[in-house]
């Protein structure tokens, strides 16, 4: 049994235009020591999937299916039980550390909080452990900065504090939702390197959510590409980025501005826009924007078809898709 098993997860949201599914039948599993990435654009369902895994779905969202952590179904667990799991067995890092941190408490207190809550440490012991953690995430001047408040730190330093707090109880699973999107490029690579090192040392599982294909390629061994609430392609990261089997993955890859392409060259934009979840077509969610669409695409959501070992894409025109033009790296 894997550490995390997500089976047929569906998340229904109450939108202004009636109920709509933000996540549609998502299944995957993740074991200790493994790293998994979820990528896609806004509205693809990647963040909703992450929120379902940490049982923090927004008000009015209904999740069906199963989210098994160590065999226990979190979707069926009581709030009391979830409180004992979140921040303890599952550590979380969010995009904007300023909103995830409490502006009224010093950082050392916030890192110590889960230790007191979940491990029942005394104030002094929790503080000592928190200082050790802040040092471990290489907070600049860790001992002096520990007494600082979040607004006194830079974005990268705040994210280090959040990581220290997520790791405090030695979780089995670390969920990082766009952890570096709000940061500068140079800080981004420092933080990603730090996360990779800590995950490696502690042997926990990492679930990384990012819209950035480059962040996926360098930080996870397995990648899931989401579009319109479904996983349209999944596989070992290297295979996903070398084959680019699904027309959406291939289109997204070709649309990126890249260094050295040169001026005057047009980018291969994907026509149209990401559909809102209330507007998703009945069949393949990408059908409206795909160059290969045929009538059968709109009949039903395509099943995952094998591309290679452990690599599958939900596309009934897989053979044609593999011949679409591919951008260089």
């Amino acid at each position, binding site marked *: 049994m894997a550490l995390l098993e997500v089976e047929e997860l569906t998340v229904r949201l109450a939108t202004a235009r009636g109920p709509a599914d933000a996540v549609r039948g998502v299944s995957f599993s993740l074991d200790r020591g493994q790293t998994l990435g979820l990528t896609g654009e806004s509205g693809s369902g990647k963040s909703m999937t992450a929120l379902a895994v940490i049982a923090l779905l927004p008000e009015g969202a209904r999740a069906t299916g199963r989210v098994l952590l160590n065999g226990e179904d979190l979707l069926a667990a009581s709030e009391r039980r979830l409180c004992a799991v979140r921040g303890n067995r599952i550590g979380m890092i969010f995009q904007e550390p300023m909103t995830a941190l409490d502006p009224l408490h010093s950082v050392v207190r916030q890192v110590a909080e889960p230790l007191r809550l979940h491990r029942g440490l005394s104030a002094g012991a929790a503080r000592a452990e928190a200082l050790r953690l802040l040092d471990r995430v290489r907070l600049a001047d860790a001992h002096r900065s520990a007494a600082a408040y979040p607004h006194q730190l*830079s974005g990268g330093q705040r994210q280090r504090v959040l990581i220290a707090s997520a790791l405090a109880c030695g979780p089995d699973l670390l969920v990082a939702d766009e952890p570096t999107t709000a940061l500068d490029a140079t*800080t*981004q690579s*420092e933080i990603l390197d730090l996360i990779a090192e800590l995950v490696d040392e502690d042997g926990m599982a990492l679930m990384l959510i990012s819209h950035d294909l480059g962040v996926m390629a*360098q930080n996870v061994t397995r990648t899931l590409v989401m579009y319109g609430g479904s996983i349209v392609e999944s596989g070992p990261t290297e295979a996903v980025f070398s084959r680019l089997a699904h027309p959406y993955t291939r289109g997204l890859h070709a649309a990126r501005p890249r260094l050295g392409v040169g001026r005057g060259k047009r980018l291969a934009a994907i026509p149209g*826009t*990401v559909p809102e979840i209330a507007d998703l077509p009945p069949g393949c969610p990408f059908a409206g924007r795909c160059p290969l669409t045929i009538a059968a695409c709109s009949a039903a959501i395509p099943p995952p078809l094998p591309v290679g070992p452990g690599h599958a894409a939900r596309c009934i025109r897989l053979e044609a898709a593999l011949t679409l033009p591919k951008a260089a*790296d």
Partner: protein
Amino acid sequence: MELASVTQDYALPRQTLFRRPGRIVALDGVNLTVGPGRSLGIVGESGAGKSTLARLAMALERPASGTVRFMGHDLNALPHAALRGLRRHFQMVFQDPNGSLDPRQRVGWIVAEPLRAVGGLSAEDEREAIAAVLESVGLHAADRDKYPHEFSGGQRQRIAIARALITRPSLIVADEPVSALDASVQAQVLNLLQDLIAKHGVTLLLISHDLAVVDHLCEEVAVMYRGRIVEQASPERLFAAPAHPYTRLLIDSLPQLSSRPRRRPMRAASTAEAPGGCSFARRCPHVRERCRAEAPVLREVGARHLAACHFAEAIIAQPRT
């Protein structure tokens, strides 16, 4: 557009009632020239002074010292009415179309706002101008009667671009025009900007943190760090032979799709300022004694290639990782 020795600083919040509030230098002696029909990109991390530069170029604030000239006029010496008349020739596109489009106004009203501010156009001409500009950014003339919320993010940014174009400006200042957009839509807007530069001969001052976006649109790139330009060259030259260690760090930080060996993470640099010397010295892997003592000036290190580093020639010669 010409900026000469432009400096700008802002007051920090007062720490106590009894001490003068501190000041933070956002721009420190910046010189820049953008010729007509040219495109210049400005890159750098947050806090580098990119957006301050954009605001000064748009005459939205006055520099603490230095001059900002546009079409030969000193923007900060012009009488108010003359500046207002000149504004039709330079327009701005902001990062977040949701924040810059009034949600309670129809698209036609939003797009025509700069025209009304300039004045002197009949209702009939205004209607025609709106239709033409909406079509030039790939929208329909009929979209004028819709509200911004009826459009997707990419389309909203097209509306913002249409608003900037309607006075037929010769200069457009775009501050992170595509960073709020989804990847698949970002490419559409970049293609549009490229067409507009080519078709209308618009001069572009593009602010972006994304090196690839600047490489795609601009003929020249200026890299900013802590309020100064530390390197300036054509993108081909800059990305092939970076002369400043900061530029090199930026390029190496770009996530590549091919995997790279992991670096041992460094302890983050403290933000405390070193007095005198090079502002990048604390983070620089090649730092030497001279860097801490003497601030490097922006100087020529190659053909049409400027860099502010004492050891630029040695940095260029180093193999890229």
